[in-house]
Every structure is written in structure tokens, then in C-alpha cells.
């Protein structure tokens, strides 16, 4: 595989990412299932990089999951998104930082719709004003939060305590990157590096010392698929797509998977557990499963933060094998303790732990 060829593709998909003053919109899945990621994003941006990031408590779900499940109509979701833009306008911000790939897809698709169909934009302005009395502006800069981490990846590398290198062998750790369908497949121009050979996550992994695994099903969907998993009887479709990816990556012996999208992270994580329960199949080495990390979690790990503060214990597949490879110091006894040291119940049937 020729690296030069990939660099040529990346050159075609350079994205303008704002430098400061972000209006932050959260992800439903992330703040519920692995909230450490968003927590760390805010800490990193504000405390470490010294950026101004605003969260508005009136921000709601983008309703993307409802939209993709045919529950929320297009006109409604356009009004919801417009309301978020109105909150941003009222707070005096012009750069939106979106913490979820589903939302990012919703925002970019709606902005593109308004560009091509100005009547829809006018309709939305009217709908929002009638419903809430609010007015909104189109954001000047739209970035997914991984775009922002990508932008500051080298600053993070400079502050790193650990590198994505196997402590025993000295070799780079092998990372699978998965950007999620709605990050760039709809609009390759809005994704760092485009859709076929994306750069957003691979850039982080390389900057932090790791090596990219390019496996045959790399571009395949994680299996999330909204309708596939919402209806129990359909979940076989979701599960099978995930299995297809893991079977394809297995021979490359990846040390971890880095995800962009909340849904991808959740399903590549939880379906590994499910498949193991069903027929005993695991995709990592030595009978282990492959840890699935968000970009904030990975950034936090290389920067030497306590894995339990990053919330890594909240995944189904535990990341201890990765900690050991990287040489990260961690205390297993603290894993399920509250901040003030009280012991919480310990989950059963944890994978890799």
C-alpha cells in the first residue's frame, strides 16, 4: 500500500476547522452510555488547550434517531436543528462543535438542503418563529468534535505521557479506525480526508505513535443502522454487519478500534459481547475481545489521565489489555469507586477484565 497515494487523497479533502469559540452540542448516546468522553472533551478544550467552549443547558437531542426511524418528520427535525442554531445565535457563537456523527450528518444534510432549497429554509424560519419566537443564523463553521481533536492532535502528542507503542516490543500498536457512515459518506467534502480514505482518526492514531490497520471491510457500516436494532427481530441484520467487519479485521490483529460515532462505538462494543455469548467467538488475541475507544478516551489515555476518570470502565469490552500494552498504570480496585471513594456494585460478565 502506498502512503503517497493516501496523502494525495487527503490533500483533496482539507477541511476548514475553527480554532476557538465553540458552541458545543452533545450526543444522546455518549452522554448516557460513556459520558467520560464528553466530560474529557470539555476539560481538554478549556483547561488544557485554553479554548472557549460554551454549553447551553437548553440544548436538546437533535432527534436524529427518531428521524432515521421514521418517527420524527423532516420538517420537525429542521425546526429542532434551527432551534439549536438560535440558541447559538443568542449566546453569540458562530462555530458549532457537534459531538455525534448522527447529529453531524443531520446538521450537514439540513444545511445542504437549505442551500439547494431556500424555500425550506424560509419555511423553517417561519416554523421556529411561530413555535418559539426565536430566530437563527447559519453557523459559520461546522465541525465534528473529532475534527477539532484532529486539528489539535499534535499538541496532544506533545503533551502525551504514553505513546501508542507496545511497551514490550517497542512496535507501534495497530489501530482500526471507523469514521461512521454519516460522517463523510453523504458529503465527503465535509469529512477530513473524505470518505474512502478518511484522515480524521487515522491522523490521530499516527500522531500518537500507532499504526493504521486497513482491512477489507474498513468502509463497511458498523451495523448500527437505526431501524435494524430498534426492532428486536431485526437486530440480526445489525449484529451480522458488525460480525462481518470483525471477521475481516481479525487477521490483522488490531490492538484497539477507534470510533468517531457514538452508535458505532456502542455497537462494535456491545455486539462483541453478544456474539461471544451466542457462539463463543472473540475477535482479539488470546481469547480477548478488541477494546473500542472514542477519540477523547484515546487522547486522555495517551495524555496519562486515569482510565477510570475517562469512563473506560463503562464499555462492555474492557480496555485493560490495551493499558497493559501501552504500559499505563491503573488501579483495578478503583475501577468502580465513586469520586469520593465509595464502592459501587461491580458489573457481572465483563469482557477482557
Amino acid at each position, binding site marked *: *500500500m*502506498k502512503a503517497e*497515494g*493516501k496523502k*494525495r487523497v487527503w490533500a483533496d479533502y482539507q477541511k476548514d476547522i475553527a480554532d476557538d469559540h465553540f458552541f458545543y452540542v452533545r450526543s444522546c448516546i455518549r452522554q448516557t452510555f460513556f459520558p467520560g468522553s464528553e466530560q474529557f472533551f470539555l476539560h481538554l478544550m478549556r483547561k488544557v488547550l485554553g479554548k472557549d467552549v460554551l454549553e447551553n443547558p437548553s440544548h436538546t437531542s437533535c432527534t436524529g434517531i427518531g428521524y432515521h426511524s421514521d418517527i420524527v418528520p423532516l420538517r420537525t427535525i429542521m425546526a429542532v436543528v434551527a432551534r439549536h442554531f438560535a440558541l447559538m445565535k443568542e449566546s453569540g457563537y458562530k462555530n458549532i462543535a457537534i459531538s455525534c456523527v448522527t447529529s453531524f450528518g443531520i446538521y450537514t444534510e439540513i444545511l445542504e438542503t437549505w442551500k439547494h432549497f431556500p424555500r425550506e429554509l424560509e419555511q423553517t424560519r417561519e416554523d421556529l418563529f411561530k413555535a418559539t419566537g426565536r430566530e437563527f443564523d447559519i453557523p459559520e463553521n461546522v465541525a465534528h468534535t473529532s475534527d477539532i481533536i484532529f486539528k489539535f492532535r499534535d499538541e496532544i502528542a506533545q503533551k502525551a505521557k504514553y505513546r501508542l507503542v507496545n511497551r514490550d516490543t517497542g512496535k507501534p500498536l495497530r489501530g482500526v479506525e471507523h469514521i461512521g457512515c454519516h460522517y463523510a459518506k453523504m458529503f465527503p467534502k465535509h469529512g477530513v480526508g473524505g470518505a*474512502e480514505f478518511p484522515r480524521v482518526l487515522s491522523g490521530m492514531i499516527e500522531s500518537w505513535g500507532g499504526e493504521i490497520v486497513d*482491512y*477489507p471491510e474498513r468502509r463497511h457500516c458498523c451495523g448500527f443502522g437505526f431501524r435494524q436494532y430498534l426492532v428486536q427481530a431485526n437486530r440480526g441484520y445489525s449484529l451480522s454487519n458488525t460480525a462481518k467487519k470483525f471477521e475481516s479485521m481479525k*487477521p490483522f490483529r488490531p490492538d484497539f478500534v477507534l470510533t468517531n460515532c457514538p452508535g458505532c462505538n456502542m455497537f462494535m462494543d456491545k455486539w462483541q459481547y453478544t456474539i461471544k455469548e451466542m457462539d463463543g467467538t472473540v475477535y482479539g488475541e488470546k481469547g480477548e475481545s478488541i477494546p473500542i475507544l472514542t477519540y477523547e478516551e484515546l487522547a486522555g489515555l495517551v495524555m496519562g489521565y486515569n482510565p477510570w476518570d475517562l469512563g473506560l470502565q463503562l464499555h462492555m469490552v474492557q480496555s485493560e489489555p490495551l493499558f497493559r500494552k501501552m504500559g499505563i498504570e491503573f488501579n483495578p480496585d478503583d475501577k468502580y469507586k465513586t469520586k469520593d471513594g465509595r464502592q459501587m456494585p461491580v458489573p457481572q460478565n465483563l469482557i477482557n477484565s
Partner: protein
Amino acid sequence: MEDRVLVVGGGAAGMEVAGRLARSGYKVTLTEKESLTGGHIRNWFHLFPDRRDSLEVLSYLENQVDHGNITLLTSTDVEGIETRHGSFLARTADDREIEADAVVLATGFDLFRSERKEEYGYGIYDNVISSADLEIMFRKGEIRRHDGEIPQKIGFVHCVGSRDEKVGNVYCSKLCCVAAVKQAMEVREYLKDAKVFCFYMDIRMGGALYEELYRESQEKYGVNYIRGKVSEIAENINGRLIVKVEDTLAGRPLKMELDMLVLMAGMEMSEGGRKIAEYAGLKTGENRFFAPADHHFGSNRGNLRGVFYAGTCTAPMNITESISHARAAAADVIEYLSNGRR
């Protein structure tokens, strides 16, 4: 008769039209941007449909331009063409001025740059090559994978950069199908035990003896045809290529591992031709080639009096058609100049 004609482009069409005009007594300046004439033919090994060595055609063309009335300027880019009192003044990149009473544009085509079909990974995956790359291997007499191994399973992807709105080319390049058939047969001759697959949307065998060649490829060479356009190429851990294609005749997706994949790059208006169209105000069609004044009886003329077209600068053509089109251009130029420039 002292009429002067400028022919831009020293490929098959340009060489043929220059030779014809020179022998009819015109003073011809033939410019070619490369250091050698011959255009794309120089990069091709064997030609369809009869598998003749391209050097034979090249030597015919070189013979055509070997004439006292022809001034050949190689490594010369024409950077401007202006009309002056019914004649033309062209300027080259090295500031030479060429006066002419008529101009023939034979600026030809560029091969589609296969890396633009990102999903095929040309320039990224080591064993994804273009049809032009394969011809170089034929000329060397050695078909090898990047790692030096002899490939045993080879695929051809038709319509790369043709019939594809995603890359802005809605037209059919017309020759890639038969070129794939020819190359598939040649691969089988070099590598007796190799399995060869052509992935196609339609097999377009419109030229003389093309269909016969296609049949021969199935009957005598065992070339396998799978109807479906390859949607994505990836590499597995052994460096083998995985293609994903819908087998549209079986109505199901198909997956296959291959040692090497050849992308049948289509034809596009040349960059040189595009620049001339821009500065000289020449009309181009939806396909971006020069738009002929009339599709049926004016394919050598455009919208500017005294400017003529020859060959693939107007549409994809094979060598036979390019040469015929060039001869027609020569006849048209002669008529124009001897008929009070009408």
C-alpha cells in the same frame, strides 16, 4: 499556392492531416507538446482488433510527416491563437509566432486519471493498475505483481471514468471494452494458467471485428465475464485484492479475491484542448470535447471559421476512425482554402 496550415497535436490524427496537406502542396507547421510524435500510440503495445504491433502504425504515421512541406516543432505548447485579417497568429510557450491561413486542432484525448475513482485505490493499492500500465508490462514482456510474483487471477474493470456522473463523464469512451477484451486475451497468452475476469456494465462491441474478438476471448481464451460494475476494491492481509460487485445476472452481490486488477481508463478531452477552447472561444459539448458544427456532415468544423478538428479532440475514436477523420479534415481544409476561405 503558399497557404500555410497550423496543425496542433502530433498524434495519429495530427500526423495524418499534416501529411495529407503537405502532399497537397500546403506549408504545414505541426506542433507537439511532447518530445516525440505519435501520441498515445507510443504507449500501446498491440492494437485491436487484429493485435498488430503499434510500432507498425507509428512507422506509417512517421512516414506521413516525413515531407519537405512540414515544419515539425516538438516539445512545443501552443499558448494562444488569434485571428488576424482572416488568417491566424499562434504563439507558443517559448514565444515563437506561427502564422497560418487555417488551423487544424488535433489535440486528442487524455486518459482518465484512475486515481479519481477513489474507491478503486489506484495509486494506493499496489496491484491496482491501469490499462496503460498493463501495455507497458506487455511491451516489457513481463506481467508481475508489485511484489514480483506472477499473478494468477486478474480482473479488468470496465468503464473507469466513463458513463459515470460521479466523475463528471456521462459518455461512453467506446474503446475500453474492446481494449479490455484484447488485453484479457493477451494476459492469457502470457500466463497460460491465469484466470481472467472482466467486470462490465454492458459489453459495447461497436467496431468492425470487435464482437468476433469478444467471442474468441470466451471460446479460445476462456475469459470470464461478470456483469456488474465494481463498487469498491480493498486489500486483504496477504496483499490480495478484494472486489465487491453485484453479479447483476445472478441478482446477488459477489465477492472475489484477485492478484491484480486492471482499470480500463476512459478518454477525456485533453487538458491542452481544453485550454485552447478557452482562449480561442471554441464551443465544447456536454462531454467537454470540441463541439462539431454539425454531427452528420460538419464534424471537422466548429464555431470558428478557419479552425478545423481532427480525431479524438471531438469524441472518443479508435485509430482507424481518427485517421479517417483526419483525412476528412484535410479535405475540408483544402476545400476551404481553395474556395475563398469558406
